[in-house]
């Protein structure tokens, strides 16, 4: 692992505040409440904590490696710097358990993100934001595959609630769509491996670190929106605070030998939200055999720091105390 002067400090912070990979934010716009999504990041900036996010899957084996049980424990903390600007810090602890074989574990690289909401419409339950995330190379463990180089990802986000649909299709008003589009840009073009073969010749292998499009959507149907704004169908607790959701998270390399080959997962699940926190669980289903063949599970506890202690957690350096998450 490549050492860095600030790595210890960064990881100490990450251990306390926890993890990335499954970033998220919650928010209100108009009468629409958007929950924090588990897989893709959503368009809001907020004061919140995801801890823990647990992902578990059995990865299939290959000719070189046995099947492996993988468990990721992630966390992320997000903080608003102004009503429309937010920063996030997160990390993931990964446990890899080969069947058979010796288990390995370690932290993946820490991730730092900055996001800015640049357009919103309460009447149309819509907002757009842009951001950039930085996968800090060298802060994770090589044992679990953490890269030693940085990756920078500029991103665009959107959120759209369908509360403005006409009366004829009012049953669709509880629907909402969020999306994220980003481009992973590794700061190192190639990984170079130097070895000596049986004949004593030096061999140099160069592996491209490909630029990769990261894109995803979430489709949500809010039962709380249905009950409160469309039609009271008499749902009891806790179903009246549930949001069935499907998230789609894809990766498409745009260069190199795998260019154009999309991998990813479709994650159906449900989120329940309350006053101070939300709970979510999703199945993680690979979209093709290149991604894998086994179904994983993703679960998350997510805390609304701005609701738990508004005067503490909603303080910002540029706008004082903002109060709860809500576009102004």
């Amino acid at each position, binding site marked *: 692992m490549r050492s860095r002067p600030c790595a210890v400090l960064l990881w100490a912070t990450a251990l306390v505040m926890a993890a990335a990979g499954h970033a998220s934010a919650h928010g209100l716009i108009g009468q629409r409440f958007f929950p924090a999504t588990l897989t893709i990041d959503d368009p809001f900036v907020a004061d919140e904590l995801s801890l823990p996010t647990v992902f578990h899957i059995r990865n299939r084996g290959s000719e070189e490696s046995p099947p492996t049980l993988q468990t990721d424990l992630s966390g992320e903390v997000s903080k608003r710097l102004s009503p429309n600007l937010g920063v996030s810090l997160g990390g993931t602890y990964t446990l890899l358990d080969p069947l*058979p074989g010796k288990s390995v574990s370690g932290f993946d690289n820490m991730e730092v993100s900055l996001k800015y909401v640049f357009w919103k419409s309460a009447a149309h339950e819509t907002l757009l934001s842009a951001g950039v995330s930085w996968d800090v190379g060298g802060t994770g463990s090589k044992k679990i595959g953490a890269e030693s180089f940085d990756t920078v990802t500029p991103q665009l986000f959107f959120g759209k609630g369908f509360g403005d649909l006409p009366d004829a299709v009012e049953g669709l008003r509880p629907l909402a769509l969020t999306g994220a589009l980003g481009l992973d840009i590794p700061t190192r073009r190639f990984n170079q491996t130097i070895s000596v073969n049986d004949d004593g010749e030096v061999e140099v292998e160069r592996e491209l670190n490909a630029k990769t499009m990261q894109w995803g959507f979430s489709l949500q149907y809010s039962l709380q929106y249905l009950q*409160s704004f*469309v*039609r*009271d169908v008499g749902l009891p607790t806790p179903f009246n605070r549930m949001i069935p959701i499907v998230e789609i998270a894809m990766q498409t390399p745009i260069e190199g030998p795998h260019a154009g080959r999309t991998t990813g997962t479709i994650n159906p699940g449900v989120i329940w939200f309350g*006053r101070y926190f939300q709970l979510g669980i999703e199945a993680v289903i690979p979209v093709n055999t290149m991604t894998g063949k086994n179904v994983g599970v993703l679960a998350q506890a997510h805390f609304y720091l701005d*609701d738990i202690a508004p005067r503490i957690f909603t303080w910002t350096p540029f706008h004082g105390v903002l109060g709860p998450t809500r576009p102004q």
Partner: protein
Amino acid sequence: MDAVPRRARADPAPVAVRALWAVAALLVTAAPAWGHAFPDHSEPRVGHTVAAAPVVRIWFDGAIEPVFSTLRVEDADKRRMDRNDARVSAGDGSLLEVSLPPLAPGRYQVFWSVVARDGHRTEGSFAFRIK
């Protein structure tokens, strides 16, 4: 590949079952508590048709601030129809209500905006019909 026996694993089922029960208990007990005040139910019920509605009542899932809470009713032509006497009930701090004159058959839209006791503002609207 499986010549070496896999390590024995503790059965995770009892732990998972206990965790599920804990989550279920949490959901049932925590649901009424909100930072933001959201409507719990109303009269007339959201999206329903009634014979008459002398008053619109919305029960929220937490106490709301009377000074900053508003409630109005409009007809299909966006004319205000309520008696402009919206108030938080003296006996129930989570109940917002407004009186209505006798209404003709048709569709009416209710608009509300409230501030919870902890300062969170929420707003919304819903329709009901008079037959």
